[in-house]
């Protein structure tokens, strides 16, 4: 197996150049896919037989909820990478992706709550999915808070790494416990998304939205990581050359 890409990923300079070349493309492609999916979902997808048109919120809710989870997964994995290989880029990644994950969690929460009103009749139901997204949001706020509490970069990096690793291990347990708790207390509510069968006209645009939002996240994360690199590596020569070259 070829591990060169892995080592390259650990090199700030290599990453910076890679991001310069690809991040814009990824972002634009992602946004177009996302918009395509949304327009498809809003205009062309058929109405849901049970929920009517409020069903169209799915094209925001599901992708953002997935992203909120995936970002935390990525956070935790890069935390482990940082602990094991001491990779310089891992804490930078954590710092860059946490705010995006938090935004995704907020979107999932708000869209879930607004979707809940026509479906359940109230803004908030202690439904398993909404509750775990809420916990996820609090976890993100924890990571962000601990990064902003220390003056020393090395300490704040280490703290964020430890919290994301612990979070990664805890996430399945939290999710399982919330699901279990939910069956205990709310046996009757029907879940807003799980359907026996969703026709292709409904799920294909959803797939577009999901992939598009993933790519969008990758693009924005690249920019945030570049910013973080510009701050941290400001004394290094390659950053100086980079700054003088680039036209702002």
């Amino acid at each position, binding site marked *: 197996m070829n591990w060169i890409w892995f080592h390259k990923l650990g090199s700030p300079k290599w990453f910076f150049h890679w991001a310069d070349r690809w991040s814009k493309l990824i972002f634009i492609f992602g946004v177009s896919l996302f918009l395509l999916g949304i327009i498809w979902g809003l205009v062309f997808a058929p109405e849901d037989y049970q929920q009517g048109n*409020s069903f*169209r919120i799915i094209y925001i809710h599901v992708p953002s909820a997935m992203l909120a989870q995936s970002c935390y997964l990525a956070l935790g994995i890069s935390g482990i990478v940082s602990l094991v290989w001491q990779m310089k880029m891992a804490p930078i990644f954590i710092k860059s992706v946490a705010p995006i994950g938090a935004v995704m969690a907020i979107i999932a929460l708000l869209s879930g709550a607004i979707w809940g009103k026509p479906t359940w009749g109230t803004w908030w139901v202690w439904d398993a999915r909404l509750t775990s997204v809420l916990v996820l949001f609090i976890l993100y706020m924890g990571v962000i808070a601990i990064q902003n509490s220390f003056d020393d970069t090395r300490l704040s990096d280490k703290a964020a790494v430890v919290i994301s690793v612990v979070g990664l291990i805890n996430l399945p347990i939290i999710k399982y416990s919330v699901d279990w708790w939910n069956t205990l207390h709310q046996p009757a509510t029907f879940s807003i998304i799980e359907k026996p069968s969703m026709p292709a006209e409904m799920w294909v645009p959803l797939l577009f939205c999901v992939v598009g939002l993933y790519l969008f996240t990758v693009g924005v994360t690249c920019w945030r990581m570049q910013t973080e690199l510009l701050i941290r590596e400001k004394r290094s020569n390659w950053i100086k050359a980079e700054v003088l070259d680039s036209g702002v």
Partner: protein
Amino acid sequence: MAFESFSDFLAMGTHGHYVWSVYGISLFLLVGITVQSITAKKSQIKRLRKLSLGKQNTHAPD
């Protein structure tokens, strides 16, 4: 096409305000984080540029 007319599309059955508020809020947040990321990068580049140019100027006389 799932809608007869544009006003139908806006109304979304009876759920127009739910759907549109979700899309509005989400758009706002996504655009917000994008813009924030881009401006943060640009302003940092500008700051570093000023810093390195400033240094070159002060070093120039000697």
